[in-house]
């Protein structure tokens, strides 16, 4: 069955960052920027998605992604329901297909899914009428992470096109790296991957990136994007790197390896002292907390974009908070 679901199709999904074109990315980032201004007000809730239902279904642990999706839906006045794998029928061996068929019986407008299986988000589009948003499918894709990273870079540097971005660390196991390579390249940035040869997948140059095994090549980057190094990679039998100690010594991002004029980013959660030194994470040029903040407005923008016509950035009316009167017809209830 067809698994290509461009965001311009009739029933739109966001499965991979490549589902979007450049214009759609710009539109979503602009929408998020509009929402950011609302987030500075006292009342932060918008009525835009009132009466809509957003389900978040997380089969893998997550802090930022699940909480920001849920909060994003609430800020837009949607009804939300979140399902975690533990404590659900998944514990009783219910298949992904059956779980989705069951949830679809409640007619959700959007299902946000995280699952360890590559292609799981694409697969459930065959079993539900809801718009599907991929919140991470194994090592494959994490498109909203890419959008929030693009948003953060644009907010800090004013552009994406022409930037030099170094992605450092375990690219092999990273859905964030794969989404960002596609998203950054599409938006005109140049990407260099830096890490141990065992953790850079064979053939990835075909995605239009440069590969380096030398951490010194960070020097050319405007943005240093650091990936989480997972302890399992050092398990006996895996042998991706001999030890965490050697990894940190060779590829850890330490204060002496970045300059203050370089932006430091990390999708979180960070391992201080492993892939990133504490001093680097806490430095003025670090945008790690801004990334988390961007996650909320970008996910609001994605939900808004899926559930409204993709006609452009939200106008005045979309950005009116709950209870705020329409300027043209003061006193009238916002619909």
């Amino acid at each position, binding site marked *: 069955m067809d698994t290509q679901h461009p965001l311009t199709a009739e029933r739109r999904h966001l499965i991979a960052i490549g589902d979007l074109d450049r214009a759609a990315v710009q539109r979503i980032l602009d929408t998020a920027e509009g929402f950011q201004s609302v987030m500075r007000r006292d009342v932060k809730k918008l009525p835009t998605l009132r009466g809509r239902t957003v389900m978040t279904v997380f089969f893998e642990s997550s802090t930022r992604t699940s909480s920001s999706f849920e909060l994003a839906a609430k800020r837009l006045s949607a009804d939300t329901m979140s399902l975690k794998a533990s404590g659900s029928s998944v514990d009783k061996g219910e298949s992904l297909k059956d779980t989705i068929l069951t949830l679809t019986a409640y007619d959700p407008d959007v299902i946000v899914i995280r699952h360890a299986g590559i292609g799981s988000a694409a697969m459930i589009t065959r079993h539900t009428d809801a718009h599907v948003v991929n919140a991470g499918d194994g090592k494959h894709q994490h498109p909203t992470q890419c959008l929030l990273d693009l948003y953060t870079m644009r907010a800090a540097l004013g552009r994406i096109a022409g930037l030099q971005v170094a992605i450092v660390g375990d690219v092999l196991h990273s859905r964030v790296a794969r989404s960002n390579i596609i998203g950054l390249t599409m938006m005109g940035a140049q990407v260099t991957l830096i890490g141990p040869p065992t953790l850079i997948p064979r053939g990835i140059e075909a*995605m239009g990136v440069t590969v380096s095994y030398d951490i010194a090549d960070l020097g050319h980057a405007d943005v240093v994007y650091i990936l989480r190094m997972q302890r399992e990679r050092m398990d006996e039998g895996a042998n991706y790197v001999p030890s965490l100690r050697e990894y940190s010594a060779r590829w850890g991002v330490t204060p002496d390896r970045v300059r203050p004029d370089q932006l430091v980013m990390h999708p979180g959660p960070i391992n201080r002292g492993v892939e990133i030194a504490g001093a680097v994470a806490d430095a003025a040029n670090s945008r790690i907390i801004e990334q988390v903040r961007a996650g909320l407005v970008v996910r609001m923008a994605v939900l808004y974009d899926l559930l409204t016509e993709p006609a452009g950035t939200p106008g005045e009316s979309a950005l009116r908070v709950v209870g705020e009167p329409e300027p043209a017809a003061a006193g009238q209830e916002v619909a």
Partner: protein
Amino acid sequence: MTVRLHKTPAAPATLLISGGRVVDPGSGLDGERLDVLVREGTITEIGPGLEATGVERVDARGLTLLPGLVDPHVHLRTPGDEDEEDIASGTRAAAAGGFVAILAMPNTNPVVDSAQVLDSLVLRAGEEAVVATGFFAAISTGQAGARLVEMAELADRGAAGFSDDGNPVERAALLRRALQYSRITGLKLSLHEEDMSLAAGGQMHEGAVSAELGLGGHPSIAESVMIGRDLQIARHENAPLHLCHVSAAESVAEIRQAKELGVAVTAEVTPHHLCLTDRAVAALDPATAKMNPPLRSAADRAALIDAVSDGTLDCIATDHAPHRAEEKEVPFEEAANGVIGLETAFSAVYTHLVAPGLVSLSTIVERMSTGPAAAFGLDAPAIRVGAPANLGAWDLAADWLVEPPYASRSTNCAFAGQLLHATCRLTLAAGTVAHRVIEVAEVGER
């Protein structure tokens, strides 16, 4: 010699197949508007304008008659998984694809590693099989790679060969003993070649597409280093060897070199490896694109096509692997390996290789008929006076959309959704009608 192929008894066909093109490279035959007369299951006359009264007539004008196809590698899932396939449904699928003889792999539940299990299959094939069906026995008990099966007894009971397919024979010393001991049976070993440590975690071919999708890579060398090892053992023991589903360019190079050195190796390749590449995995549908060995790169595909042309690869074999829908309606990494292929094999190869001019029709017929028959010591199907009727009548111009329902009990077809050339109208297997979707004229009418 022990009978190695089994089929349900059926009335032998008496038919006049008139006006078709007959192509049989083995008999040196390629002629237009020929009649083929079959009496009591045997081809009795071939020529233009044959007269035969009181005989059913099939109008084969516009059709091409080819020797029946032979598939040395199918999974009939019997015993144990008859909900995926059984001998009746699997052989009907074979007949629908123009096959007249197939050999089934022994990785069933239980494994075919004892005379009792083999006997039960021979019995069932005698009741249900609509094409001639043979059965491999395992090389090692339970295909566990530890202890040899009782090869002599299994050979006496009619095993067609020995295979641990699904698993490699990991221990070189066990393979060596198997090659030495199987000599007394005259039967061949058919090997699934895979270095498990190199293939560990592999979900698809390791390359640019796996890098982009994030799926674990199954490198080409996982196959070729094992093939290299086993060809050296076979050469040392001066023993014949058959290699299953060759997928990588590196493997082709090993086989070519071994043949030049005189090793008695035969090797097969699947239609999906000849027609598709790892790009097909990008849709992330395991029903069509997940199998072991995996679909490989365009360069590998080109090397396989060259090897079919020059004979380095002797056979095209389907590795027909039915799976229930639940095993495929899951995320890619959780899904079972394998695709069905009996009904689409010739049509896919004709569409993707013959029609674009990459390989000749006669070469494909040899690789799908005489090649596999010779590799396993079976009688080669032939369109020749005096031979039993083993043939297919194909409408090469009739396109068909690959979609359910299939004759197979499973639907995990690599070519699902494709429009393929070449429709099989009639299959005669061992002198009986095994498949027919063509009008038969009244008796005696011309």
